[in-house]
């Protein structure tokens, strides 16, 4: 390679340097930031970026997870292990507890905990007086997400107003908030699903086993295969099979579609995504309720 072209970043380096810049802005500009960490692939990348941004110092913010009580057990195990390895403080707030405390109210018959994460998260932000929460959302996930800024302002009710977002120009992020307001910050905004996996490969990051091919009891419902579990028992006449599957995106155990796949290495996954004909979110039941499902949740404070 000639001297001229060597001063060039490839796309992963570019995304990395942009994300590190964003993380450092958060550390410098906010009093009490938190980093949302679920143990999923995007937040795994976030943690590596936090290490890159702040080492050899400790990562200067706690990790926060809203546990819906419907998580895959593998995910929670991984989450706890990774946080301990990094020496980070992990705060867990449970939807269960929020319901018991009267903070979150299930609608009659509502099984999904997706909506109930909103009040639980908002209450956690308030409890710890967090003025900023870093999240692993990406703009390529969904078209309402595609509209999101790196620094996404939320009012005192935690609401997002898509019609009135702050202009975000160059790399000059306006991080100012008044008391009670907060900011959601998304360092992975410009990353795609493929970038995330290429980064996991490059950085040799460990991911929970459910991303890799395994055998699982699966039930056919709503046009997709869902994992059989205590909270998702098969109903009468539903087709149940043990399949070789993996997950592409992890939501709650009751809304995460399983993908039939033999991929059991990161390289396999990259090859599979390159050939994929449906999006990652195509396997998430929670986005299918209406064309604006994500937008509506975000307006109420969903991360």
């Amino acid at each position: 390679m000639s001297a001229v072209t060597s001063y060039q970043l490839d796309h992963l380096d570019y995304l990395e340097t942009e994300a590190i810049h964003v993380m450092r802005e958060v550390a410098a500009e906010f009093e009490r930031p938190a980093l949302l960490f679920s143990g999923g692939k995007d937040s795994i990348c976030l943690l590596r970026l936090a290490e890159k941004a702040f080492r050899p110092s400790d990562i200067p913010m706690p990790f926060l997870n809203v546990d819906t009580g419907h998580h895959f057990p593998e995910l929670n195990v991984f989450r706890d292990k990774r946080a301990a390895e990094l020496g980070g403080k992990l705060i867990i707030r449970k939807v269960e507890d929020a319901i018991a405390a009267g903070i979150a109210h299930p609608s009659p018959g509502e099984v999904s905990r997706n909506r109930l994460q909103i009040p639980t998260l908002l209450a956690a932000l308030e409890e710890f007086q967090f003025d900023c929460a870093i999240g692993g959302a990406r703009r390529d996930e969904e078209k309402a997400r595609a509209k999101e800024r790196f620094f996404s302002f939320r009012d005192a009710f935690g609401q997002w107003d898509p019609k009135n977002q702050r202009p975000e120009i160059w790399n000059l992020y306006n991080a100012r908030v008044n008391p009670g307001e907060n900011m959601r910050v998304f360092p992975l905004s410009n990353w795609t699903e493929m970038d995330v996996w290429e980064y996991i490969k490059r950085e040799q990051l460990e991911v929970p086993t459910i991303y890799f091919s395994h055998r699982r009891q699966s039930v056919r419902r709503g046009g997709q295969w869902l994992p059989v579990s205590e909270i998702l028992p098969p109903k009468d006449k539903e087709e149940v099979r043990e399949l070789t599957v993996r997950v592409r995106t992890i939501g709650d155990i009751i809304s995460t579609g399983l993908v039939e796949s033999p991929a059991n290495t990161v390289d396999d996954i990259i090859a599979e995504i390159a050939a994929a004909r449906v999006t990652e979110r195509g396997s998430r039941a929670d986005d299918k309720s209406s064309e604006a499902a994500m937008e509506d949740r975000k307006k109420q404070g969903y991360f």
Partner: protein
Amino acid sequence: MSQTTTGHPVELLRFNTCGSVDDGKSTLIGRLLYDTKSLMEDQIEALERSADITGGGQINLANLTDGLRAEREQGITIDVAYRYFATPRRKFIVADTPGHIQYTRNMVTGASTANLSVILVDARHGVIEQTRRHTCIAALLGIPHLVVAVNKMDLVDWSQERFLEIRDAIEGFLPKLDMAKDVKFIPISALSGDNVVGPSDKTPWYEGPSLLHHLETVHIASDVNLTAFRMPVQWVNRPNNPTDHSLHDFRGLSGQIAGGIVRRGEKIMVLPSGLKSTVKSIWTLDGELDEAFAPQSVTLCLEDDLDVSRGDMIIGLDNLPGMGTELRARVCWMHPRPLQRGNKYFLKHTSQTVQAAVTSIESCIDIRTFEHEPAPAQLAMNGIGEIRLRTAKPLVFDGYGTNRLTGSFILIEQGTNHTVAAGMLFPPTEPVKPEYNDFAI
């Protein structure tokens, strides 16, 4: 490094599309995604579903990018939507920016980080005020590459004459905008895909590249300023770890390099103090580097213990920047409350935020004529003007034309915290004179 099949690193090109309402921006992006096979089956199905309900059976590619309820209701783009696609040669980040005049601030948002702007012109309507406005903003933001895509050529019978007319009209006013950089004109039909991904047989008179081919090959390596080292200090990395003695003396200065190259062992200076030192090491989690360059995010350790904090700038000893509290800038005003002389704002420049007062509004630009109207009383929403500012603390800066990162700022309204302006600094009248405050410690 990720590599293409040919072994070159995969480059990233950021571009934005702009044009008036109904010029076909979203359709063009939909077309690029569709024809590069970047659309997935479930996205196409969703388009078909909504076509059955609202679109009279026709797939509306614009629905791909208009992701908000309010946008679909009105059929217009309100805010920037970002899309991602890749070809074997490059990865692309596309900002689909609104054409509606009311949302000019969002166009500035999408364009500020772009290497290239695609300005759409409806071949039937030719150059309209919005075309001039968008070209003006692209020029103002110093976007290095411009493509004028003359769209809906199918509706003017692929007329070369019409295409040349539009090209001449735009080339006629480019000199007024100092937009003498790389400008390409491409006749297209976003709806049918002609000259978008592949060449079209409808335009035998056009010998240039298709839009995608141009996006894949335009030379962007020299878009970054590598001649003058600048690193605004973002965060001071001081591990306070009582158990690890090796870290006891670690004191790193973290930041994203805004220009130039830095090497281990090189002399640097910190501004505004003017203190000098030598780079002891360039620390990263992946090991120390011999050199680093823009726009890498790194941590520098210096030979001497200088007093350095967030907002300071580390620079090389050649190509000195300007420094001062009296500034001249072009601004794009983005808020319904107009800019008036005497107003005070927070000004964020690189990693520092200072108070600033607007001491005068020297002129504003008439978008229709590109003439400067002298000394206007105020600058209204979406107005572009030249102002003078006084800051409470000195800024270390370059002209925007020299460095987009050290030459830019935003203004923030005090109290509401609204981002009200994007500012581009004029070059300093003289470089900083460090000998006046160069003292040893």
